[in-house]
């Protein structure tokens, strides 16, 4: 099972995302922003950081990277894609997910361990969780305030596409405490906090983040898409 992790100029958490994929039992494949070749990976993680220096808007320029053109096509065809923090911003800019991430309401960068409640557990990235499960993973962002028009928010809730909400305090002012969402098909997930930083006791506040990575492995196995299965 091969999970691709993209590196853009300014990506920070690509190393941790690749490490989380390995800890979960996958082979991590590093993908480069300027190369449209996805190297036959079974899933893709867009990591956190400040792609292209956050110039113009977070994720706005990364969306046009050669690797993104391939990822956008593949995601529409069902490839599991997880966008974390800056990766979530890139997915919104690429119109793979609705809404936008804007400056934190209080203007401060927030960096802390954050409790979330998982809601949608039928996605490619959250099937190892139980609905309503409370998890603790780090959040660290300056522009993590999720906004969308009321109709879109209502639709996300009605269709069960809110993946996780902030509990015990909203760190950035996100509407309806939304921390993560999924697309209609459930293969594309964007989440503002960082599951890849909560995969082992030495460096994280919990092991709760690992569930995102083991979920996609189960999803791929269930789909019979075991591209790396013989290895």
């Amino acid at each position, binding site marked *: 099972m091969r999970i691709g992790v993209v590196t853009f100029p300014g990506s920070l958490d690509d190393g941790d995302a690749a490490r989380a994929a390995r800890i979960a039992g996958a082979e991590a494949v590093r993908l480069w922003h300027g190369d449209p070749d996805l190297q036959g990976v079974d899933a893709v993680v867009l990591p956190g950081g400040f792609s292209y220096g956050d110039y*113009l*808007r977070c994720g706005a320029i990364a969306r046009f990277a050669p690797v993104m053109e391939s990822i956008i096509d593949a995601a529409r065809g069902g490839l599991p894609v997880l966008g974390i923090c800056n990766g979530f911003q890139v997915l919104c800019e690429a119109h793979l997910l609705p809404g*936008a991430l*804007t400056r934190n309401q209080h*203007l401060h960068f927030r960096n802390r361990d954050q409790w979330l409640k998982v809601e949608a557990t039928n996605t490619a990235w959250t099937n190892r969780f139980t609905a309503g499960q409370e998890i603790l993973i780090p959040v660290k962002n300056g522009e993590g*305030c999720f906004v969308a*028009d009321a109709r879109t928010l209502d639709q996300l809730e009605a269709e069960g596409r809110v993946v996780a909400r902030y509990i015990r305090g909203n760190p950035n002012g996100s509407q309806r405490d939304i921390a993560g969402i999924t697309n209609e098909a459930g293969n594309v997930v964007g989440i503002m906090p960082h599951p890849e930083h909560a995969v082992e006791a030495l460096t994280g506040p919990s092991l709760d983040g690992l569930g995102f990575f083991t979920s996609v492995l189960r999803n791929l196995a269930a789909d019979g898409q075991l591209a790396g299965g013989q290895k």
Partner: protein
Amino acid sequence: MARVVVDVMLKPEILDPQGQAVANALPRLGVTDVTSVRIGRRIEIDFAGEPDLDRAREIADKLLANPVIEDFEIRLVETAAAEVA
């Protein structure tokens, strides 16, 4: 010579915390009659030949502004040739 100027502003219903922070600082300048400050972005585009407003609109719609949260306006501004060069 003409230059295309694109003004990008957050939609009115989107909270602008930067603008609010500026508005909250104004009383320290002795300004007390301002009710709202909103901050946007001005982008100047120079074409190699004649300015192409349709192309500029496409650039603004696809890249310069995010239509989910922002509106934009496009206009031509006359500039001195020396300034463009």
